[in-house]
């Protein structure tokens, strides 16, 4: 896992990255004169499962649509599996399975018929489409239910059908847009397990778009974070999550005293809501906090390990290795 140091804005675009599944170079998409969905995005994604993290409106769906060749970028270039997105959309869409964020299933046909039909639309002959539809539905955990009309399905089953239709054409790459949308906790876990298994056992590269880092970090090898159409950070999941762990400490009174004491002891606490947020360096951080609170005799009401919100995670951590500060977001990052 190598993350190149970020280059300042205006530097030459990175060269073609060998073995990259997805590659974007200075990718910009504007809707009209005012709305910029993607802004000089540079990123390269290797094989494996990659999380695409960003708040709603950060440009995740726009990026996916450009990658599928459905939207033309305003400027810049994107490549998927070595094919140019602007000129070679057909080839990309033959090799790629797409699971949209929103409901996209007809209620009055059976899952088998629907997935078979979409298998044909992916270019499979009739017999192969039937076989692969049955296989795909089994892989996602639909057995006898697949002969029922989709309208009778639960949300979790519908999400599985959506995944099955993305899988039916035997893609090299899956683009999943918010696959856990609308699922209960058990359903989320099952869906994430399924995605993890497709990525590891089936050997299919996956890009999972989500606004919930805590959720997809469990299954991702790499992480790409975007905000307002710019790359915040592209890195391996381990380096991101290590840097993001923080300790939230709340005392009933004397928050300022504690802040001063912790600073004196070499930590860098930040006032956060009603407490203090301290970067978690290891076990000794807990000890330092405990000792500080005890020495000051303050009433400790809460001490909790937590994660920053996505935006904070990538912005308030400029010192972390490999991270990209907001002022340098046009820099290149290479996840391989």
């Amino acid at each position: 896992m190598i993350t190149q140091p970020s280059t300042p804005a205006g530097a030459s675009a990175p060269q073609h990255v060998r073995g990259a599944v997805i590659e974007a170079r200075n990718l910009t998409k504007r809707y009209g004169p005012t709305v910029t969905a993607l802004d000089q995005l540079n990123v390269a994604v290797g094989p494996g499962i990659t999380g695409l993290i960003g708040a709603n409106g950060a440009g995740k769906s726009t990026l996916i649509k450009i990658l599928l060749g459905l939207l033309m970028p305003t400027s810049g270039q994107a490549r998927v599996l070595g094919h140019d997105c602007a000129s070679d959309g057909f080839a990309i869409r033959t090799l790629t399975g797409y699971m949209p964020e929103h409901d996209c299933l007809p209620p009055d046909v059976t899952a088998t018929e629907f997935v078979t039909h979409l298998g044909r639309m992916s270019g499979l002959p009739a017999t192969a489409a039937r076989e692969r539809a049955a296989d795909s539905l089994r892989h996602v955990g639909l057995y006898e239910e697949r002969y029922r009309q989709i309208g009778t399905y639960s949300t979790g089953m519908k999400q599985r059908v959506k995944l099955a239709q993305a899988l039916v054409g035997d893609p090299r790459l899956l683009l999943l847009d918010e696959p856990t949308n609308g699922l209960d906790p058990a359903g989320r876990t099952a869906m994430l397990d399924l995605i993890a298994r497709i990525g590891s056992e089936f050997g299919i590269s996956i890009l999972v778009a989500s606004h919930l880092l805590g959720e997809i970090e469990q299954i991702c090898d790499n992480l790409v974070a975007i905000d307002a159409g710019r790359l915040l950070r592209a890195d391996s999941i381990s380096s991101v999550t290590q840097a993001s762990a923080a300790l939230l400490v709340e005392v009933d009174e004397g928050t300022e005293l504690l802040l001063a004491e912790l600073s004196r002891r070499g930590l860098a606490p930040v006032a956060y809501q009603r407490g203090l947020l301290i970067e978690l360096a290891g076990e000794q951080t807990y000890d330092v906090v405990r000792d500080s609170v005890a020495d000051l005799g303050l009433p400790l009401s809460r001490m909790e390990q937590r994660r920053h919100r996505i935006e904070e995670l990538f912005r308030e951590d400029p010192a972390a290795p490999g991270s990209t500060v907001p002022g340098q977001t046009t820099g290149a990052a290479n996840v391989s």
Partner: protein
Amino acid sequence: MSADAKAAARQPTTAANDSSAGVIHNIGYRRYDGARLGRAQIVRALMWHSLRGAFGFGRGAKAKIFPVLLFGLMCLPAAVNAVALATNPGGGPIISYDGYVPSLRAIVMLVFVALQAPNVVSTDLRNHTLPLYFARPIGRIDYPLAKLGAFVLACLAMIEIPLLVLYVGNVTQQHGASAVWEQTRQLGSGLLYGAAWAVLLASIGLLLASLTGRRVFAICAVGIPLFFTYILANVITHIGQIAYGPAAFGQPSKVASLAGLISPFTLLGGMLHWLQGSEATGLIRANDLQRVIIGNYGWAYGLVFVLLLIAAVGGLIARYQKVGVA
């Protein structure tokens, strides 16, 4: 997330096999290495799928009720003709190929297009299925063309199969090669004219139905314009004749002559008169109420037919150029 926990997440099958509901069994993944269809073959597959959908196949039994009923209604005149000829061997055919029964054909096709065009295009809009199509090797122009091809074929089936039934009924009562040849010649022009109906109504119907994803609205969007223009054309034709009288000796008034351009049905009727040199074949028309007056403006009917067809097909293609996906 620690490395151990991640490893656990990577091996869901061992954990999941114990629980009962929603179990994901490991059956192994099989790659597909066989041949893939080209773009044209995918479009053909989509067309075939949509053609089945236009008659309710692949959906529930309820979806088949109206198409089957309408098709039966459309075949009725041909059946009556066959029975009449069989019971009265001396008489000639009572129904022509080109006109068939114009008002019946107009009403049946109006209902068919209004009810079934939404099934062909609106359902994909309503269910937001379009992103799934366009995320596959299907071009923006492929989808509307496949749908149009399917619905033209569906309308052709509705119009041409009754003509073939009519032909069979007539030919079995004919004696001599020349009589059979005459029937075949008339069938040929009838089929050609029926194709004009199918192409025009299918493209107008799909364009109007593709404007909305709501089925009820789509039915209204297709049915109401077709129905009211039909009524309007007939009313204006009559008023034009009564109010203005013949414009010149032997010629109907301009208003009456051009009123038929308003509705696709009277447009098709007027085009037939123009192509046949105003008067029809010697066969008796079952219903002359729908007789369209074209006066000296027959050429306008041909021109408007072509323009309307181009506009409808172009509009349908344009509609799917900018329809939102994902």
